[in-house]
């Protein structure tokens, strides 16, 4: 597949000192992913605000046990549907007398943590598959392209709901179902980028220099293509948070009594006429979380994507 016939596949094994030296002298030397990211992330308004919002939400979620004023599942039968501002319940209580603020705080733990957690598997797996498929080509590439085309043919939410249904409810199910569908997007991104990079001169130079394939991929190709996937991951987190809360709204999400913003909205439906805040407050929480993630994506795009 390459000009230097078979070299990328035939030179596995630890690099010799000469190889390392060649690599170190090259002006096209690969950089660690962290350094590329770290260098370009400077002061950037959307990035800073986005990170602040998400950081705050993660902190609230992590410290939920300490900062939440009440037990989120404790019911006060004598104090149901209290409006915001009620003594002891700043944001009021729901139809079972549970404290809205506490449920909101625990919802941050469930929704934001699960959304970011659900991102990791598809990101890592999809990127790996995409890079290997794009760089090596051949039958593996053809099979992967076929699989990707098939999964993309499904309406995402429909397939997600079907998967959650067959696998049974729970956080684990949500993470697995998102991973099963979402990896294809990362694979497609990484594949296109890896195909582009595979024919670039710096890669050919590295191949001629006898650098093993895994090292070319890890130190040269990945740092050059990963920024696009990182940017996408943040937009993707917005979609995943919307998916998770939608599942909650449909009663297929994080199982009760654990609180989730989508479930809170679903439970507030009968009371929307008189106790509108029950539905409005968790909705605003979702919008704020999604806005924070979008800002991070936007800021990263400006920083990392010079083109």
């Amino acid at each position, binding site marked *: 597949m390459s000009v230097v016939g078979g070299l990328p596949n035939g030179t596995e094994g630890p690099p010799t000192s000469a190889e390392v030296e060649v690599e170190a002298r090259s002006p096209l030397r690969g950089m660690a992913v962290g350094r590329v990211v770290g260098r370009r992330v400077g002061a950037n308004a959307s990035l800073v605000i986005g990170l602040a919002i998400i950081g705050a939400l993660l902190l609230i979620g992590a410290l939920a046990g300490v900062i939440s004023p009440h037990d989120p599942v404790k019911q006060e039968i004598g104090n149901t549907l209290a409006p915001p501002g009620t003594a002891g319940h700043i944001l009021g209580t729901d139809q079972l007398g549970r404290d809205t603020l506490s449920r909101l705080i625990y919802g941050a733990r469930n929704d934001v943590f699960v959304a970011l957690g659900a991102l990791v598997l598809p990101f890592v797996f999809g990127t790996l598959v995409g890079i290997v498929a794009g760089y090596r080509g051949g039958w593996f590439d053809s099979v992967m392209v*076929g699989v990707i085309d*098939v999964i993309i043919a499904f*309406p995402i939410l429909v397939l997600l709901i079907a998967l959650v*249904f067959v*696998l*049974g409810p729970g956080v684990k199910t949500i993470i697995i179902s998102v991973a099963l569908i979402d990896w294809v997007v990362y694979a497609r991104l990484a594949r296109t980028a890896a195909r582009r990079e595979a024919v670039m001169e710096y890669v050919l130079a590295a191949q001629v220099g006898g650098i093993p394939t895994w090292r070319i991929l890890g130190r040269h190709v990945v740092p050059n293509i990963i920024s696009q996937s990182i940017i996408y991951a943040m937009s993707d987190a917005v979609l995943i948070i919307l998916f998770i809360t939608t599942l909650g709204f449909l009663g297929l999400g994080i199982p009760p009594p654990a609180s989730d913003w989508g479930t809170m*909205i679903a439970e507030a439906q009968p009371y929307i006429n008189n106790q509108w805040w029950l539905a409005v407050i968790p909705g605003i929480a979702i919008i704020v979380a999604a806005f924070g993630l*979008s800002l991070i994506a936007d800021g990263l795009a400006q920083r990392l994507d010079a083109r």
Partner: protein
Amino acid sequence: MAFAGFLVRRLLQAIPVVIGVTIVVFLLIHLVPGDPARTALGPHATPRAIERLHHEWGLDRPLPTQYWLFMKRLLTGDLGTSLRLKQPAGSLVVERMPVTLWLIGYATFLTCLLAVPAALLAASRQGALRDRLVRVLSVVALGIPGFWLGLMLIEYVAVDAQLLPSAGYGSGFIGHLESLFLPSLTIALGITPLVIRSLRAETLKVAESDFVTTARAKGLSERQIRLRHVLRNALAPSVAVLAVNVSFLVGGTLVIEQVFSLGGVGTLMLQGINSRDFPVVQAVTLILALVVVAINIMGDLVQALIDPRVEAR
């Protein structure tokens, strides 16, 4: 004639995808932890009933045979029988299809109505106030959950202000237009930010082309350049962007149907889930995926009609 060739080629390309889709839908039932028949029939099912369902679904045979049987039935239009309603799952889906197709079409129309002017406005001067305004608004809109927006529209537009119906499908063309306006708007607002983002980028790309510079050198006014050259060349990629986003749109209809009690395919699927009716869930998943495949083919054809260069690809 070239167009007919393109159409045939595009249809042939879709065949492996459709086969792949059937494999995924077929495998869904095998992802059920434990025995799918037992799960479907509930804890009180008799061993004989479970045995019967095993046989009916072919679960007692090897996997390739099962898929072969599944495909053979599928080709005769048999998508299985609903466990609860005791009716063919396929016809249940087809019965409820009109509402869902209406929603998809209406929402696509509203998306174009919102996204095209917004994207052109933003791209008309990159970095200007209008560009940033459109961007901020679409970032905020992207994060609004559709089901929540739907509830808010029902409460404040339909119930409080009495402007539009809050539920139902309406009757007659005008009735549908009126009844489905709020649900379609809700769905459209969910994908509009995505469409605006891609459209803006496409328009900016076209605006940088050499032929635009030539047009400018020829002395055409900016307005003429924008309408005759940029817009026309950005149209084909825009259709592609729309077709890609339809996948989100179809997923969106499922939830919004529930919010507005429309009783379409999405409602059928959620009812199927509540009653653990596997054949219904499978049938809906399969048919909605086929709808997406069909819409993507249509998108490609429209693109080819607008821009002959597309056929050559």
